[in-house]
Each structure stands twice: as structure tokens, then as C-alpha cells.
């Protein structure tokens, strides 16, 4: 997974405060002093005072909205969506009437301001949503639930091309090195569709089903609700920007949900490059079925784009890596790197040695649940 230095939340908050002051304060000033201001900049006075006051009022409202975001960004994702919409529309119409009707240059200041803030709000939105995933992606192993440690772990996964099973083998290695006994369950679809190598027709069917999230069913996992595992690790790969259907089917089957309830769970994702949404889908499923997510890892296959992407297409098309042979020196490998595998061993070890959450926090969580 990538981890980059980013603008701090504080930085985004102050950018929100800036536009809050500009929108709310500026529009009060504009309504009160529009005559001298317009004269100063040589701008024709508004012909329709109602529309002028209305737009000032709308812009003032967005300023209030930005101030609320400044005060409580973590609770303000919906407000940011409204802010994005409002500022994008304002910017669009400013540019439209500039080019269409010769709106004076003066107004372009507001158009550009709102265009830039559309992007800033978008970025801040991405920053504030799902902060728990960022914590997990930092590499943290969170404290587990308060329940006896049986030192038994269950790995649930599906692997069509071998990349997933390769990753889980390393997690198993890490867990076992720290004294865990590990069992595995493969999500075996009841449909013959999900196999590899496949024909173009099968590939297209899998692709369309993945895009439209058409579910499948899997054979029973055979794990009773009162099982002895204190940790469950689930792996999924990326199929057209989402988690794979057989793994999702494990959660969609009501009979399997009790397997995860009240247990420590962890997520592993392997893919060509788009890991973020499948990871979010997997973690949200784990939470939805009552699991307590203690860790997550996501890994991309190595190589630079666009060669990596086309290597995947060749791999899926030919059914084997390194084909066609004349491209062998260019095509990238279709499994995670040795470094990633070592990290997964360490991940398994860290999961095995995870702490237990303090009793007061555990009590508060169980009360909320």
C-alpha cells in the first residue's frame, strides 16, 4: 500500500475558515457597500438587485457551512458534499456568463475562488471520510476484544490465480511462528464460473457481474457459531474495483455471520493496483457481521504502470504469467513481491501478539453495540 505525506487536517480546517470568512464576511460587505466597491473596480452596478442579493445570501450560507466544517470536520462530510456542489455550480455559472454574456472580470475572482475551493473541499472530504481505514493502513494493530485467547486462528479466502493463497500462506506462517494453530477455509463458489484459466466469454461474464455486484453463493464453510477461533483473517482480491464475489458471498450468507460476531478479525487485500475500495468493502462487511477489525494490509503487484496493467490483461488472457513469450522481459509478475510476503509474515506475528483492549473501552463498545 502507498503511504504519502499529506496536508494536515489542521491545514484543511484553516482553508475552510478562510473561505468561511471570505464568503460570510465578504458577502455582508458586498451587500452593504456594493456601490463604492463596484465604482472602485469599474464594475457596472447590478441590474437585478433581487438576484444580486439572492446570490450574496447563497454565498453567505456557504460561508456558514464552511465555518461548521471548520469547527467539526469529522462530522461534516455531508456538508462538504453540499459545499462541493454549491461552489462547483457557482464557478460553472460564473465562467458560463463570463464567456456567454461578458460578465465583468471582477466576478471572475469569485469564479476562480469557488473553482479552487471545489477541489479543496473534495480533497478535505476524502480526508475526513473513513478515518478508521487510515488508522489501519498506517500499519497499526488495534487491541482485540476481551475474550479468552485460544491461540487458534481461521483464514478465510478465495484465490483464483494463486496470489491470494500465496499471501495467506505468509500470514499463516507469521501466526504459527507465534504459537497459533491455523485452519483455513476456501470460499468455494457453487457456480462453475469462477475458475482460472478462463475463456474470453467467462472473463466477460465475471467482469459484468463484478461491475454490477451480482452475488454468487459459496459452499458452506462448516464453522459453527461457537467455534474456538479467537482470530479470523479474511483475504480478498480486486475484481473490477470491488471485492471478489466468492469472498463477499461468505458475508452475504446469513449462516456465516455468526462466525465473525464478537471475534477479532483482520483483512488482507491483494491486487494489481486498485486496492482501496475492495479493502473498504471487506472491512465494512467484517464490521457489519460483528467482527472487531484489528488490522488490515493491502498489497499491489509490483511494476510500473501501464505495463503492470497490460501484464495483467495478458496474464488473464493467456492463463499463465510471462506470455506471450516475446514480451517476457517486459511483463510484470502477477503476484505480490517477496518484500510484501515478508510484511505479511510480520503481520501474522503482530496479529498473534495483539493486545486486548482495556475493560472500560470494551464495556463502552459492547454497550454501544
Amino acid at each position, binding site marked *: *500500500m*502507498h*503511504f*504519502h*505525506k*499529506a*496536508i494536515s487536517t489542521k491545514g*484543511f480546517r484553516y482553508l475552510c475558515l478562510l473561505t468561511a470568512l471570505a464568503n460570510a464576511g465578504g458577502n455582508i460587505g458586498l451587500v452593504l457597500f456594493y456601490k463604492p466597491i463596484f465604482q472602485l473596480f469599474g464594475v457596472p452596478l447590478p441590474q437585478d438587485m433581487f438576484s444580486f442579493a439572492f446570490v450574496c445570501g447563497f454565498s453567505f450560507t456557504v460561508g456558514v457551512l464552511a465555518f461548521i466544517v471548520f469547527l467539526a470536520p469529522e462530522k461534516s462530510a455531508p456538508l462538504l458534499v453540499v459545499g462541493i456542489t454549491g461552489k*462547483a455550480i457557482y*464557478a*460553472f455559472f460564473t*465562467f*458560463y456568463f463570463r*464567456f*456567454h454574456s461578458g460578465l465583468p472580470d471582477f466576478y471572475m475572482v469569485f469564479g476562480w475562488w469557488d*473553482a479552487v475551493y*471545489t*477541489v479543496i473541499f*473534495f*480533497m*478535505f*472530504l*476524502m*480526508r475526513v*471520510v*473513513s478515518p478508521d*481505514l*487510515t488508522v489501519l*493502513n*498506517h500499519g497499526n494493530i488495534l487491541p482485540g476484544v476481551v475474550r479468552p485467547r485460544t491461540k487458534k486462528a481461521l483464514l478465510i479466502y478465495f484465490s483464483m490465480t494463486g496470489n491470494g493463497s500465496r499471501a495467506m500462506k505468509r500470514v499463516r506462517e507469521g501466526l504459527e511462528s507465534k504459537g497459533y494453530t491455523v485452519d483455513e477455509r476456501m470460499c468455494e463458489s457453487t457456480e462453475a464460473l469462477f475458475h482460472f484459466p478462463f475463456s474470453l466469454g467467462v472473463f466477460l461474464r465475471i467482469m459484468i457481474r463484478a*461491475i*454490477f*455486484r451480482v452475488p454468487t453463493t459459496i459452499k458452506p464453510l462448516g464453522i459453527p457459531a461457537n467455534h474456538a477461533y479467537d482470530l479470523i483473517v479474511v483475504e480478498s482480491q480486486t475484481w*473490477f*474495483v*470491488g471485492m471478489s464475489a466468492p469472498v463477499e458471498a461468505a458475508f452475504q450468507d446469513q449462516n456465516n455471520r455468526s462466525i465473525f460476531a464478537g471475534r477479532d478479525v483482520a483483512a488482507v487485500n491483494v491486487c*494489481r*493496483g*486498485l*486496492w*482501496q*475500495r475492495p479493502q*473498504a*468493502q471487506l472491512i*465494512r*462487511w467484517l464490521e457489519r457481521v460483528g467482527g472487531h477489525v484489528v488490522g488490515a494490509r493491502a498489497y499491489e503487484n509490483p511494476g510500473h*504502470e*501501464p505495463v*503492470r*496493467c*497490460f501484464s495483467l490483461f495478458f496474464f488473464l488472457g493467456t492463463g499463465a504469467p510471462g506470455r506471450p513469450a516475446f514480451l517476457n522481459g517486459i511483463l510484470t509478475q502477477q503476484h505480490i513481491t517477496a518484500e510484501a510476503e515478508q510484511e505479511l509474515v510480520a503481520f501474522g506475528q503482530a496479529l498473534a501478539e495483539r493486545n486486548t483492549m482495556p475493560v472500560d473501552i470494551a464495556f463502552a463498545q459492547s454497550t454501544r453495540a
Partner: protein
Amino acid sequence: MSLTSLIENGTWGPFKDLLQLMSLPPDRIWQWMLFLSAFLVLCELTRLALGTVFTRSVLAHVLRCLLTFALQAIVLAAVLVWADHRYPTRGWINLGYALLFYAIWYVAGQLVLLARPDTEGADLGFMTVGALITFPVGIVAALI
């Protein structure tokens, strides 16, 4: 008021303007540059914003799939064909602009890395797949 008069008296001006603008008229370069750049930036930011939310929504998932490359690539291809139809001598120049739009698309995706430390950024792989839609169509349009 009848339905016919309602439709006839509707305001279609902005849509007609937009259609005209998408023919990439040489005297309005800044205008269509801004519009198409904004379109690509918004598409990419929306795609990335959908990365961690609405995880069970089919609509959100289909939208994210479309925004991965297909929508942008097809729109740019359609714009190139339409522009070549209206201004046949500018086909090759417009291909250069299309390349610039792809660069803007890429920068928009990478910009998100400044906002969220754990994100994918631009997907150059699928963007290249998109380019394989846009540019062959644009080249054929320029040749014909």
C-alpha cells in the same frame, strides 16, 4: 399551456452552447479547455471520493467503474469526432489537446495523495486503456 408549448419555450440555450463548445472552436480555446479540464478533474475526484464510501451500493460501484476510465475516454473520443466534423482541419491539433487533457486527468488523481495518505491516486494503467479508446478514434476522425 400545452406540453408542446412548454417544451418549445424551454431554455435549451446552455445545452446548445455546450454542444457548440464541444466542437472545440478555435476561437474559444480557453473556454473549452476550462470546461473539459473541469469535467475530467471532477470525474477523477468523484472516483477517488467513492473509494471508501457506499461500499454496498451497486450504483456507487458502477459509477466508480465508469469513472475509472470509460466515461472520460468515451467523452473525449466523442468530442474529437464531433470537433473533427465541425473543423476538419484541426483533427491533429485536437489530438494534442486530448493528450493535455489526459495529463490534467493524471495530475488531478495524484493531487488526492496530498489529501489522504492511504489512497491509490491516478490509475495510469486504466488511463492508458482509456487512451486506447480516445486516440484511435481521434486518429481515425483526423484521417477521414
